[in-house]
């Protein structure tokens, strides 16, 4: 590979070398890092496949079986004695409600913390402390939070909602504080110069100018929280449609019923995705 030159310069322009041949491609540091990363990930994948524990499942047979199950699920979903239309609709409402309460609590906490995390409204040390704290909180999976709360504070909706709120706060805090930081520095300076207090600046300038972003981001998180609430219903006994899915798959082994429940979940998720996509497009939000 005589045409590859190792250079830390990141411009991709062709360089002439001493022998006058034109170098079309340079192996720059970013490219090298990219290739090494891909190689490492590929190696890990190969080793992973070589050592994965399949518990002696015949993979070909299981694949065929899965395909047949998927056919039944999506081709002939059926309600059962336990899961009728009315029951499934009620369970979906419970899951949506859990997601709603989680989003509400998360949003309130995130607005308050977001004001202290935004660099233009606070000093850098407080901002860094809050952001560091949040990254530790986010490192613990939501299902662990819910399980910890259901043992430490008792089973029920409270444990589920508060357990799910942690990642919601982390997510919204980042979104909110970034939209607070977009406020023109001159506005804050002008208000400060005319003697406005911190509280006045927040309520007269910061919140009004970012309210549409706050609401859009909150809805986007609500959409995510619906899927989270389905998962917590299944894995942590939080109730709702996820719990029905868990019952159908582990105990009733009713594939047509699993299909019926899955259709309910997909329908709600798709409607929310359409709304969220419109909001993102209107406010040019990238998540």
């Amino acid at each position, binding site marked *: 590979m005589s045409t590859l030159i190792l250079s830390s310069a990141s411009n991709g322009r062709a360089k002439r070398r001493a022998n006058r041949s034109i170098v079309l491609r340079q192996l720059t540091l970013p490219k090298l890092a990219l290739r090494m990363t891909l190689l490492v990930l590929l190696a890990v994948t190969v080793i992973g496949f070589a050592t994965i524990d399949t518990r002696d*499942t015949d993979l070909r047979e299981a694949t065929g079986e899965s395909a047949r199950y998927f056919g039944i*699920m999506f081709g002939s979903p059926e309600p059962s004695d336990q899961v009728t239309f009315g029951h499934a609709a009620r369970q979906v*409402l419970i899951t949506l*409600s859990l997601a709603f309460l989680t989003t509400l609590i998360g949003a309130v906490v995130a607005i308050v913390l977001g004001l202290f995390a935004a660099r233009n409204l606070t000093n850098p040390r407080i901002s860094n402390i809050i952001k560091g704290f949040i*990254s530790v909180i986010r490192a613990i999976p939501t*299902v662990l939070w819910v399980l910890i709360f259901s043992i430490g*504070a008792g089973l029920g909706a409270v444990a589920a909602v508060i357990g799910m709120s942690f990642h919601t706060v982390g997510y919204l805090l980042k979104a909110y504080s970034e939209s607070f930081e977009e406020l023109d520095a001159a506005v804050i300076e002008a208000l400060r110069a005319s003697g406005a207090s911190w509280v006045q600046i927040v309520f007269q300038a910061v919140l009004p100018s970012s309210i549409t972003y706050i609401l859009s981001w909150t809805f986007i998180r609500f959409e995510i929280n619906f899927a989270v609430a389905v998962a917590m219903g299944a894995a942590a006994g939080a109730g709702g449609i996820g719990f029905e*899915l868990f019952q159908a798959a582990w105990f009733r082994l009713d594939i047509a019923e699993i299909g019926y429940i899955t259709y309910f979940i997909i329908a709600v998720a798709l409607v929310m995705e359409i709304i969220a996509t419109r909001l993102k497009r209107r406010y040019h939000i990238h998540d």
Partner: protein
Amino acid sequence: MTPDKYFRRQKFVLTAVLVGMVLITLFAGDITRFDTADAFTAVPRVVRWSFRNFIPDEQAVSRLPRILSRLLDTIYMSVMASMIAAILAFPMALLGSRTTRVAGWLAGAARGFASVFRNIPIAAWALILILAFGTSDFTGFLALFFATFGFLSRAFMETIDEASASSVEALRAAGASYTQTVSQAVIPGSMPQMLSWMLYMIETNIRSATLVGILTGTGIGFQFDIYMKSLQYRSAAMIAICLIVTVLVIETISNALRRVIL
């Protein structure tokens, strides 16, 4: 509109939204039997409980080898799922992207397919797959793979749209073939961003693998569930600490890599 009228209307809209939110909150609290008084004391109660019960002891430390081996399985699983999903999501994204699509109907089909995959929650994937594949790590891998595939397909589509539109146009104008355009413009242009998405999915999958593990009875999640249910909270705490360290280390490496490649 006079300012007076404008403010009055805005006040009305604000009040309506607030009343609506309060009503929904009351309904949601009622249907889930959410105990508000309980909620206010929950966090202090859990903090107190954690200090008494959720700190690793000697037994938990002695279990570290087993926990670490489960953790390693989990890391393998998330990397595998992200890598295989990325390899399959790329052709899907080529078909669905506005700049590289082959035919309109095919692009619509690709987008719709990716959208359905993305909207089936990972918990549903895990519970569906367990019926045929049983309680094994492979089931967990498949569930992570399907969910990641849906997410990456869309992320890659957007990346290709953004990163390579102008260079694709230039190459097309110069008479390059489809394969040439993809290999010379699309892949070099969008690779850094796509790798960044993969790193993001590896981080996310480590957390999701815990959830999938509980549902499929495998890996670190299942181990945590067992310790919690058999009241061995101190060993469960050890798992939580290991997960925090792992996620933070992976996040730090990813961020360092992003700074170099992006």
